[in-house]
């Protein structure tokens, strides 16, 4: 048989030049790291990690205890706290007592200055009957502590304001950073630091002393105390010769309110096993994750050849023609291709001029010479439809010529 002599038998021939590693049956080398090599390679990293963890733990444990910022707290040194003001007061011989509940405030007794700063979790209604001076911040405590002061419902921007009043504490201090809420001045009272809506500081005598209401207490914080006349205003308001009961919000809201009717929370009602089984579920999830996450062997990467279709350049040119509506170029290409194919069939040379070609086609096919001339050598089509029609007619001519 003819083909047998040249049949390729690749199995029998290995190239002389080689290129294949002669493995001689193959041997094998273990490539996984041993426990010892992992320890050797990783012990430095493990040591470094240990040191980092130890240092971080030490810093956290030994470093200063920075709790959450507590607004207007006389023990808080953060920017929101007021320790600076409290220290100034103590330096001037004023007793400052920090209390975080209404009961504690009552226990200290009357004829003091009650400073109600941040009273979020304090039941101030219990203090309504407490005699003495009062300094109230904001409008939350007004119904209980100063029922005759009405706040203006619009918010007032905090900024430096001038006193513009006759209150000695304010005029001595001068301008201060105040705003927040404005109030209507009650009868017999004095309004200072006015905004358009009302006064942001109101002072009036109550039965047993003076009540002062300020729209905001920013000027008393460590952040603002050194600015403007803030420190002077704060000291003038608080240093009245009486000991100060400084009311702050407790760390946690008073307990007991959240429990159910029988005093038992949801967690008390849950069986003890639920929490522990949750821990077990975490263990199970971790085990399953490890099972599914462990790959059987390495990921094999391969450089693959690029896939480029050769026709992409031609398609790109077609899209360019389309995008730019290049009808003239498109028509020229179609005509040139048709003429290139027609001239040999018509028995004309490469250099045949247009009249010869048109005449030859008209004679052979019986088509109208003018129409053939316009199709092959005429003006460029004006619209896409004309281009499609032109392509169709050129095809028609070619078909007629090839049928000869």
């Amino acid at each position, binding site marked *: 048989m*003819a*083909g047998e002599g*040249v049949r*390729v*038998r*690749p*199995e*029998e*021939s*290995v*190239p002389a030049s080689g*290129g*294949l*590693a002669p493995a001689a*049956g*193959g*041997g*094998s*080398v*273990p*490539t*996984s790291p041993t426990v010892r090599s992992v320890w050797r390679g990783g012990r430095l990293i493990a040591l470094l990690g240990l040191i980092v963890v130890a240092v971080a733990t030490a810093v956290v444990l030994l470093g200063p205890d920075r709790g959450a910022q507590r607004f207007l707290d006389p023990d808080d040194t953060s920017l929101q706290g007021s320790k600076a003001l409290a220290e100034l007061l103590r330096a001037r011989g004023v007793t400052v007592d920090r209390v975080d509940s209404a009961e504690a405030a009552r226990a200290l007794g009357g004829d003091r200055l009650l400073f109600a700063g941040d009273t979020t979790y304090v039941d101030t209604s219990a203090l309504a009957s407490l005699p003495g001076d009062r300094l109230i911040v904001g409008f939350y405590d007004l119904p209980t502590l100063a029922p005759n002061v009405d706040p203006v419902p619009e918010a007032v921007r905090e900024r430096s304001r001038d006193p513009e009043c006759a209150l000695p504490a304010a005029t001595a201090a001068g301008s201060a950073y105040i705003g927040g809420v404005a109030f209507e001045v009650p009868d017999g009272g004095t309004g200072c630091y006015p905004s358009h809506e009302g006064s942001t500081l109101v002072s009036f005598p109550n039965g047993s002393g003076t009540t002062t209401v300020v729209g905001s207490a920013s000027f008393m914080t460590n952040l603002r105390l050194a600015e403007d006349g803030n420190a002077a205003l704060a000291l003038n308001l608080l240093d009245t010769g009486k000991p100060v009961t400084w009311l702050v919000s407790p760390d946690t809201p008073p307990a007991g309110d959240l429990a159910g009717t029988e005093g038992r929370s949801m967690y008390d009602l849950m*069986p*003890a*096993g*639920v*929490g*522990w*089984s949750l821990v*077990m579920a975490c*263990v*199970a999830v971790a*085990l399953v994750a490890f*099972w599914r996450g462990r790959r*059987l*062997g*390495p990921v*094999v990467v*391969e450089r*693959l*050849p*690029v*896939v*480029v*279709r*050769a*026709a992409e350049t*031609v398609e790109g*040119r*077609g*899209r360019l023609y*389309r995008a730019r509506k290049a009808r003239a170029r*498109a028509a020229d*290409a179609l005509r040139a*291709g048709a003429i290139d194919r027609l001239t040999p069939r018509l028995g004309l040379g490469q250099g045949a001029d247009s009249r010869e070609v048109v005449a030859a086609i008209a004679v052979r096919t019986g088509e109208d010479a003018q129409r053939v001339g316009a199709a092959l050598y005429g003006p460029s089509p004006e619209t*896409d439809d004309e*281009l*499609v029609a032109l*392509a169709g007619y050129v*095809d028609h001519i070619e078909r007629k010529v090839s049928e000869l």
Partner: protein
Amino acid sequence: MTLTGRAGLVAALGIVVVLFAPQPGPALAGVCLLLAAGIMVDLVFAGAVRPLRFHRSGERLVRLGQRATVELTVENPGSRRVRGVLRDAWPPSAGAAPRELALDVPAGERRKLVVTLTPTRRGDRESVAVTVRSRGPLGLAARQGNHYSPWSVRVLPPFLSRKHLPSRLARLRELEGQHPALVRGQGTEFDSLREYVIGDDVRSIDWRATARRHDVVVRTWRPERDRRVLIVLDTGRTSAGRVGAAPIPLAGAVADGQGGLLVRPAPRPEPGWPRLDWSMDAALLLAALAARAGDRVDFLAYDRSVRAWLSGASRTELLSSLVNVMAPIEAELVEADAQGMVAAILSRAKRRCLVVLLTDLNGAAMDEGLMPVLPQLSSRHLVLVAGVSDPRVAAMAAGRGTAEEVYDAAAAEHARLERRRITARLRRHGVEVVDAPPDDIAPALADHYLALKAAGRL
């Protein structure tokens, strides 16, 4: 080490146990300890993976599109049975199957596993790693380790055009000894003397031999043999373009619907085979034919440097040497250096030969590259340029109906005009040109070679 699904299952059962235990805290500790103990037992008593030894045997050569089997012998010199799964990792285009093999090797014994490779790409494919996962007796945990067991399989070009070979060989025999020509012509050489039979051309009677033999003897002639054919493969950027429909799907051709996260706006046409592979196919048919015709065949692959060079292979070994040399050649994404190519050809081909240049008839690339230096080559050798045309361009050129299709047709017509122009210029330089679509390039080139041989132009 690694865990099995059974460990997860046991832990999941532990959730129930802890939930209903009278003392959940100690129950949790108990379940965890039990699990940890089970895992430790498995890790300790699982067959060791590290001392395993692997040996390979099997095929080293395979034609693209066929299957090769590689046997992997696992030897367990350890003291415990190794039971679990094994993965023989190969590059993706090697098409190794199955992905995981079950493994059970008793201590001191060996087992043979078979991996089937169905490569989707030419070139050398090397095994990457052998991974063994050895389960413990409880099936909770397993030891895992990798081994490197080298083996390389060379994937050869498929030579699909060999189906055309018998018919071309028959044509060759018509030209050749079995049908010796009686007319002396250009490109023929003296073959033999034989007795005159009625019907032979009287002009071919050798009178001197007739006088010696007492019988009328005629001379016969046959086509020249021992001509030289140099097949030059252009492996530059133009050879990377994919044309036609791939007879064997290649790696890198992303099938529609498997594009993963990429949303494809429209199904893209199949990318087909690179021009390089079609050219190789044609080169192999030509080489097979030329070797049978008694010509010497050399092979050069060039883009900016010599990628492959084969010379002086014996006729019987030519094809196997050629496929071996061709196997690792990839299209380089650089512009081919035509000047360097011509210099390389001239330095290698001292005597006149047929230079078959398999490249793309791309107007711009030819104008700047080959055209200026072609006269150097064609003055000393007979040059044949073979280019694979793109059937997609022909299909686009026939598109009519909508304006979009006509614009595409105009672009395709432009490309074809350019091709015809370059072909005409080449022919004016005295260069033979074969321009055929991918499926026809191999037989067309073979026919052209036979025509040249018949005309005695080699």
